């Protein structure tokens, strides 16, 4: 891919204690399935983001294991019950071993 994958995350900046918040994430990635053939009839090798992990203050909250059946520019949303002020760390793990991360702060008051 020409450009590096760019993660985009939407997290509310503030939440009340016990409030259920929805976190929406998107990352630009072509998610090459390994099923496609190029013009010469050769199979294009698989290159997808296989795992997405969301952590809050270093503690795992949510994990998604993606298969090649996930669309290009994968979108993922999930919920989090706000308890304390802290920081989210989102990590996308690529087949080629590289990790893409994003961090978002959440203030609970």
């Amino acid at each position, binding site marked *: 891919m020409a450009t590096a994958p760019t993660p985009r995350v939407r997290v509310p900046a503030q939440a009340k204690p016990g409030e*259920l918040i929805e976190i929406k994430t998107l990352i630009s990635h072509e998610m090459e*399935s390994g*099923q*496609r*053939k190029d013009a010469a009839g050769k199979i294009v090798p698989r290159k997808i983001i296989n795992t997405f992990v969301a952590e*809050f203050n270093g*503690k*795992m*909250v*949510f*994990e*998604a*294991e*993606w*298969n*090649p*059946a*996930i*669309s*290009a520019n*994968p*979108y*993922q*949303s*999930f*919920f*989090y*019950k706000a*308890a304390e002020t802290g920081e989210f760390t989102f990590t996308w793990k690529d087949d080629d071993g590289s990790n893409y991360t994003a961090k978002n702060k959440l203030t609970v008051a």
Partner: protein
Amino acid sequence: MSWTTVATTRRETLTLAGIAGLAALLAPRMSFADEATVAAEIKKLYGDKKFDSGKVKLDVPEIAENGLVVPVNVEVESPMTETDYVKAVHVFADGNPLPGIVSYKFTPACGKAAASTRMRLAQTQNIICIAEMSNGSLYMTKSNVKVTIGGCGG
């Protein structure tokens, strides 16, 4: 409505049916997963355990015009406390080249066992969703999606 229009529609319908039949004949060039492959995948995860119905809500469109981007939303009924929560959710498709779509791991910190993403579907097929609770009980649900244009890069 006159007879002619009816005839035209019928002819068009037959032509379409013919094209669909031809496509069906050509399709087997690619190998696809089927119900048996999905069953084998599930067996790998959970052995011969029994599945209950209910609790799992799988939200997929009835008809997907574009198989490349099909929204899939899963929600599992659970209080999500430290002692009673949804541990994992697996989504499978029985008509894609590979049976697996996505596997989620939830924690009590999620507050709600729900997640959505977007998937690729090669053809009209069933989506199977399994939820594993913290006490080991399993729930399953199934939904059919009709795909107008397959998302298989072909």
